[in-house]
């Protein structure tokens, strides 16, 4: 419990900043929504979008161009990019979590106290889960406020569901980050490693979406299993809309494996520094 408190205190400021920045970006994009409802603007937008190559549209998550004059279509399109940023934050948080103690050499102090490696890992995991949920609360709050402003609060229930479901890919990258952290001897390269893995998998995901022959590669990119706009369509019961169930199962498996790998590796780890 004492380590959990310390972790929360140490990382709270960073989480609040991430929450504010992501909320600001969401508000900034949704501020364009009123102009989207203008018929002339919509027409211009769609005509321009239709001129773009199909592959490019697919890579931008516009395989089916949303109706931007509907708040939730606009919201879910913007939100998928926030999920990417949020996943990066979660992965960095996970990757730095255990390795930063070794990088700063404070781990020697912790190891000399009456606390097991397992308890250290659990405390750090719980702290980072709470910090991720804090960022999520910022996003939920901003989403609800913007819905109240632009759509009279008619979609709050769906917004809450989307925010809940989209935590799944966030925790996938968090778990991958933690597993990596348990192998690192220092946090000096943790951000580079986290970003390389994230964008590596994201690019593979884009390739899988744009080149049909390589569509199985999508499973190397958890962020692309179920994008926000697809989740929204399923939630409103749009015809033909389905969730990638295999993606959901694989996400759950990655989280379980990531957590298990962290415990197994960290419990047997020599402190070499």
């Amino acid at each position: 419990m004492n380590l959990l408190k310390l972790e929360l205190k140490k990382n709270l400021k960073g989480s609040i900043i991430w929450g504010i920045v992501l909320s600001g970006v969401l508000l900034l994009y949704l501020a364009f929504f009123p102009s989207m409802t203008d018929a002339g603007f919509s027409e211009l937008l769609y005509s321009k979008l239709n001129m773009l190559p199909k592959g490019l549209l697919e890579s931008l998550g516009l395989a089916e161009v949303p109706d931007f004059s509907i708040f939730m279509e606009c919201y879910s399109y913007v939100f998928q990019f926030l999920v990417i940023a949020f996943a990066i934050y979660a992965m960095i948080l996970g990757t730095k979590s255990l390795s930063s103690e070794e990088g700063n050499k404070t781990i020697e102090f912790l190891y000399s106290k009456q606390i097991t490696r397992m308890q250290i890992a659990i405390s750090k995991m719980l702290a980072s889960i709470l910090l991720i949920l804090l960022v999520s609360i910022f996003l939920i709050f901003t989403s609800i406020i913007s819905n109240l402003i632009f759509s009279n609060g008619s979609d709050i229930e769906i917004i809450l569901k989307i925010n809940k479901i989209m935590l799944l890919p966030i925790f996938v990258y968090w778990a991958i980050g933690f597993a990596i952290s348990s192998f690192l001897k220092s946090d000096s390269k943790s951000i580079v490693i986290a970003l390389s893995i994230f964008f590596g998998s994201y690019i593979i995901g884009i390739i899988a979406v744009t080149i049909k022959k390589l569509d199985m590669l999508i499973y190397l990119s958890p962020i692309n299993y179920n994008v926000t706009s697809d989740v929204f369509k399923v939630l409103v019961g749009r015809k033909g809309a389905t969730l990638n169930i295999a993606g959901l199962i694989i996400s759950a498996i990655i989280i379980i494996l990531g957590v298990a790998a962290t415990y197994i590796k960290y419990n047997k780890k020599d402190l070499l520094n």
Partner: protein
Amino acid sequence: MKKDRKIIIEIKDLCKNYGKARGVTKVDLKVYEGETFGFIGPNGSGKSTTIRTMLNFLFPTKGEIKIFGLNAVTDSSSIKKDIGYVPSEVNYYEHMKVIDLLNFAASFHDNVDSKRIKYLCDKFELQENKKINELSFGNKKKISIIQALLHHPKLLILDEPTNGLDPLMQKRVFEVLEEEKENGMTIFLSSHNLSEVEKYCDRVGIIKEGEIVDIKDVSKINFGTTKKIVINTDKKIKLKLSGITDESYINNELHFKYEGDINVLLKEINKYEIKDIAILPLTLEDSFMEYYGSR
């Protein structure tokens, strides 16, 4: 007498390899309740590896360590309830204040109150409200000593504890350790400061190239009639006498050890023109120095 005393640390056939690099190859030792056990050896001999394995920072490749009769790997957390550890390097959460760090350290134990923290901070003249990143190495070292003593540990493991402290504080450290020893605390002291080891330790374990090469009872070490001689001379001289060992020239000084009749030595020296001479008794430090020799 030792047979009646409780064993606090028991290391049997300890081996720790880091891949191709050697850590320790064979460490066997016992430390008894209430004693101060010195642990010395050259750099890279395996002192820190032994300590880090005792504290389960490292897992042994072979062998077993028992502390308070408990296994240092499987019962590490229970053991640490009664252990205080002062590392040679001091790395703490830099953004914290001294008092926050000490409160955090205290939170791992249920027998520490604010009076104890205040007492130790006053004793070591440490300002509680300073931020750790504003402190000098010596003051950080004080934190490491205080956090290790907060909970009245039954076993205190010290790795170069006085490194970075001024002489007054070095003395203060051992005064406080003596106070704690009266309550039955056992001390395991790893240090390069041999006079410190000589002054405060009951027994000394010597480790070299990953192996314990000797364990000595400090009070029973007898140097016989051997003396340490230092002769200051402008010209190099060669004494033709038996009983002279460890001869070396340092600047204009001839250093050697002599065992035999001192009158015979003085007669021999008298044949040469010298500027000064010192005849010194051998100390434990001199005895230990042989272990720091060629590897």
